[in-house]
């Protein structure tokens, strides 16, 4: 199962439930405003580091670039739309809207 998160973690509590309702090793992909979770030195860095211990986390390059984020938190893998498609091919997706 692939968890798609498109919400800013500073505004929404989405990520908390996503992490609670997920299995170890389930990949999480950050898209749209969800990529703000990749910011370094933010107040949710702790939550993200904990998340990264259990899950591979990806963030869409085009969305990071749009938001001026050129350095992401260690462990988050930057991924383009083509890799996003590959991941949906491999896993059943659920969008945490």
């Amino acid at each position: 199962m692939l968890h798609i998160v498109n919400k800013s973690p500073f505004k929404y509590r989405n990520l908390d439930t996503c992490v609670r309702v997920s299995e170890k090793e389930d990949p999480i992909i950050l898209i749209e405003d969800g990529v703000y979770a990749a910011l370094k030195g933010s107040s949710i860095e702790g939550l993200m580091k904990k998340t990264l211990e259990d899950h591979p986390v990806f963030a869409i390059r085009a969305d990071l670039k749009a938001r001026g984020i050129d350095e992401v938190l260690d462990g988050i893998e930057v991924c383009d739309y083509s890799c996003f498609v590959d991941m949906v091919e491999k896993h059943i997706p659920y969008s945490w809207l």
Partner: protein
Amino acid sequence: MFVNRKAPHGSIYAYEGLEVILIFGAYDQEISAAFLDDAVLSLKKGQDTSEIGTKEFSATFRVLEAYGVENRYVERESLEQRGLTEEDLVMDVEVVDGATLRKYMGEQDVLLPF
């Protein structure tokens, strides 16, 4: 599986989501519905929207079983966070923890969010 996470009335997703569940039920597919986060509030007893003017639909959840939606799950922590218990809900559901819900979600071909 319908995985509902939004509160009713403030936006239409819960209501239009329910419309989808009913149609899918009529199409005779094997379907299930999960309620977590604010979607558990859709199932709260005693809702009366007459004074805000929007459509009331919580009573419709009671027909889900008749529509073939045999599996109806509510995530325990979502209920507890909102100070609710199973007795506060308009329909019979299976209350499960996050890990169990994840297991059920993992058995599905399609996960539709509302």
